[in-house]
């Protein structure tokens, strides 16, 4: 934790993004290191989703720059960002209910008998089993259709998919939003385990500040397209975060 640039997986400098007349991001600066979990909080419409979509290569920023592992990088597309090791667990999980677990784990990364175009189903099943076991996710069968699993199991599979694909940066867009306490606990344990491994940087978007201060090393607050607060979790509290987010509404909308 020396802050050397080499351990820094991603650094965002002065990134801005407009959609027509609407400024989604004004001037965003943030960074995450390997083995670190950054909590990103902010009210609805603060620009969290836009920022995630820029980091995944889905949107292109209008201004500013992004350094990936110290190198200025243009994230051209989702596929390009993934090829660099930027993985996202989207709110909707990007799961196909009609497909079995092992195919979802390999979605758009299906293994084939090259040069023949045919799927290597047995190998994908084996690797799926391995990937789930390696991070301690308990799914009875990799051939079960994802639609039959619980919300927590699906979430866990989505995380496993990202980890399995050797992510260097893992973005989690409100993974705990629609989840019960028991299921959340599974995901939080999973995140801690990933952090222990120390080879992956994680940005976690969440609304539950208790979970954020609990699992994240550092918290950033995004307000009106800017990071207005950056502090170690140990040096802040749920009360302070709530106060910060709610403060602007008490100033009778002067913003």
């Amino acid at each position, binding site marked *: 934790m020396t802050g050397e640039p080499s351990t820094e997986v991603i650094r965002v400098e002065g990134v801005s993004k407009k959609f027509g007349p609407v400024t989604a991001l004004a001037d965003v600066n943030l960074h995450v290191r390997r083995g670190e979990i950054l909590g990103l909080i902010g009210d609805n419409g603060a620009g969290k989703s836009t920022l995630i979509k820029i980091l995944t290569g*889905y949107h292109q920023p209008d201004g500013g720059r992004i350094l990936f592992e110290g190198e200025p990088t243009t994230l051209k*597309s*989702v*596929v390009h960002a*993934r090829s660099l090791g930027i993985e*996202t667990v*989207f709110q*909707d*999980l*990007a*799961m*196909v*209910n*009609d*497909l079995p677990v092992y*195919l979802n784990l390999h*979605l*758009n990364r*299906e293994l*084939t008998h090259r040069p023949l*175009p*045919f*799927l290597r189903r047995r190998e994908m099943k084996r690797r799926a089993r391995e990937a789930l076991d390696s991070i301690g996710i308990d799914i*009875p*069968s990799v051939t*079960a*259709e994802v*639609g*039959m*699993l*619980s919300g927590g199991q699906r979430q866990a599979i989505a995380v496993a998919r990202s980890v399995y694909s050797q992510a260097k940066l893992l973005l989690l867009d409100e993974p705990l939003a629609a989840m019960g306490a028991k299921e959340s606990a599974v995901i939080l344990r999973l995140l801690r385990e990933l952090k222990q491994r120390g080879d992956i940087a994680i940005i976690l978007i969440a609304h539950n500040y208790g979970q954020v201060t609990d699992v994240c090393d550092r918290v950033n607050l995004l307000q009106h397209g800017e990071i207005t607060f950056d502090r170690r979790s140990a040096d802040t509290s749920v009360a302070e975060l709530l106060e910060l987010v709610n403060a602007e509404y008490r100033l009778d909308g002067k913003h």
Partner: protein
Amino acid sequence: MSLRPMLLGVMHVKELSILLVTIAAGIYFTVASGAFNSVDNYMTIAQYVAPWSIIAAGQVMLLICGEIDLSAGFVFTLAPFMVMQFFVNGWPLWLALLGAVAVSTLVGVVNGLIRTVLAIPSFITTLGMAFLLQGLVLIISNARPVAAPKDSWVVDVFGGAPWTEFLWAVGLVVVMQVVLSATRFGIHTQATGGNPVGAAESGIAINRVKVVNFAITSTLAGLAGILQGTRVGSYDPTNGGFTTMFFAVASAVIGGTALLGGAGTVAGAFLGALLLGIVFDGFNLTGVSANAFNVVLGAAILLAMVLNVTLIVVRKRVGSRELT
């Protein structure tokens, strides 16, 4: 352990129920009509089944990725006349045929591009294309049938020789089933229909998947039209159309394809076409009117949909009990 996994496994094979019904229908008509069990009659059934199942092989792909092609029946009508257009202009027959198939493919690409680039629902897009093609065929043909080319190996291979049309159908069904269940493109087609947003987030080019499936359907429809016309020996501008297209869609639906996308098999659609062919033929033999056939067809589609939905619910229930 034994019963529930077995139950799950059996119900995974959606085709099984339709296969049983098809066999039952075959047995019934064998008993009910002396003429049913003969090579000649099987050939008649095969002639019904071939065009429906070839077009259905494409429609299944489209339905799975959440689209439909209402114009396929008129591509079926148009393609033979395109063969003649090229042929009378001095192209060798094999090249004329290839050209007609390419035109069919192009129609599908246009359908797909209008659907994806302009975001117009496929129901509307292909409805417009259907009428456009119908008018075009009538203009090209002067609304009159023409004799198909004769005396060429091309004619023999593409429908002229006995059973070739049906063999093409079987071959194309096998190929499309392999594409659907054993290639990345097949998985991407299922993902595109099952969860378009999620598929796109995973980097799957869902619009490209759709355009390719429109192209495949149209290509198959054109080929089916050429095969049938060549078998009959005459290209007829009143052939095909909405009737043929809807029989193909009915085959797909009866064979277990979900109209809302995500699931289905080409093999199931083939069995669906086979069932329709057997019942159609059986009704003819036993003297039941064509009107009654439509009643049965309608009921079969409704029953298939109800069965489909119920099976999904039951499987979910059995499955979740199994997994927790």
